[in-house]
């Protein structure tokens, strides 16, 4: 079972807030799954390489030629050459 404190720490790292009433359930669910996946620790993996990608691929390169992208349809609001966005920082 992972500690309640740990659950709150993971939530913080994940940029999530957990309601007080839901902590027990999440703690239980996460613990159950972590216990199941901990089975992997039994596996002997000495000298086994890590594999993050299933098909061997080569680096993909292209000529460095700039091209113009017209993203006007993505812009909700514009003022002169500036984008208008919602305020995200507090006044000091």
């Amino acid at each position, binding site marked *: 079972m992972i500690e309640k404190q740990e659950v709150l720490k993971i939530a913080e790292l*994940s940029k999530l807030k957990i309601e007080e009433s839901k902590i027990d359930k999440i703690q239980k669910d996460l613990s159950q799954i972590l216990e199941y996946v901990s*089975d*992997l620790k039994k596996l002997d993996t000495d000298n086994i390489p*890590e594999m*993050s990608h299933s*098909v061997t691929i080569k680096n993909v390169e292209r000529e460095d030629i700039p091209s113009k992208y017209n993203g006007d349809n993505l812009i909700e609001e514009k003022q002169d050459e500036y984008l208008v966005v919602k305020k995200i*920082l507090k006044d000091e």
Partner: protein
Amino acid sequence: MSKTIKEIREDLDSKKYSSEELTKDYLKRIKNEDGEIHAFLDVFEKEALLEAKDADERIKKGEVSILTGIPCAIKDNILIKGKKCTAGSKMLENYIASYDASVVSKLKKQGVVFLGKTNMDEFAMGSSTENSYFGVTKNPYDLKRVPGGSSGGSAAALAAEMCAFSLGSDTGGSIRQPASFCDVVGLKPTYGSVSRSGLIAYASSLDQIGPFGNCVADVKTVFDAIKGKDSLDSTSLNIEGENNLKNIRIGIPKEYFEEGLDSEVKETVLNAIEQYRERGAEIVEISLPHSKYALACYYIIATAEASANLSRFDGIRYGFKELGETLNDIYVNTRTNGFGEEVKKRIMLGTYTLSSGYYDAYYKQALKARSLIKKDFEEAFEKVDAIMGPVSPILPFKIGEKTEDPLSMYLADIYTTPINLAGLPAISIPLELSKEGLPQGLHIITSHFSEEKLFKIASLIQWKKI
């Protein structure tokens, strides 16, 4: 009985009916049937009819490709320009795609008709389509049961004859398991054979787009239309695998028939394999010794990748936004209120296994286990042409039956997840219905980029729908 793409092609080309008439028929069926099934999140009535008229013009002029004028449905994590793309999440409830996914561009060039977008587990995380913010999709074979997931909407739409084919995505079984639950054919292509550009990412090293069809030939037709290297996805490749087929040797992994497999599913799958033996295939027992670690390995890798992929949903860049006092408040409020419970759980799981102190024990260990799982398959394919087994250990389950117990839901993916870890192609073929009338599927797996061989083997037996 539902028509195959080949039959529709012949009917359209011989002017038996027009694409417009066909599209109207499907739209009518959606109107009549989908109130109850809820396979669609969005239906493009007007645009679909315009596309059908365009297709009819092309047919008149003889400018026809195999899919011209054929109506389809697309999973709602694949972008269609100018259309909402929700990924089944409140986070993207009002998000409008600004470009076409590469697979959609390819289908548009052929003159395919797009009927609508289909329901799915939020961000493709789930095995039942119960995790959609927009409500559950029901199994057309039994409305009290789930259609499977996460591409449950695409499978149900095809099974209920509300489209001629559909597209889904498969990260750990999300095409094959709903295909098995809804009695249609579903293909998870080799990783890299279909471009992921315009697919909303869940776990990038595992995600792959693939087709649902009424028969193997339909799935092959759609796969041929969407595959190939794409400059917008650097992991996409043009590779021809080993597709020769003379004497067929089929491997049956003993680990896939052990504890946890429903006895009726087991019997049906073994019967199907017996049919191959009668057709002259050699059946050999094989072992994939690391199978028992695959599900754990999958849930560590998939959630770790998800925790990184979903960090982009921060209230600043896309979709849903909840304001707050500080920048951090905006992140936290947006994510807390925009994501559903299962998605939050998986993000937290991935964050945990990637965090300092746990990284080596979980994530790094899973990457090593992944090597061993892939090696099991490589060794098996030195001896056999294909591997067969069940798609799902259980029959389609009741809505609500597994929602309280996440681990039991995850166990539904036990046979499908190893394939994504190894990057292999695999198909789900409908077998006879269970005693209760529920669909079940046969899982056929071949080596990397050997889809042609996979289709040949899958077509050897005369399945009921073809």
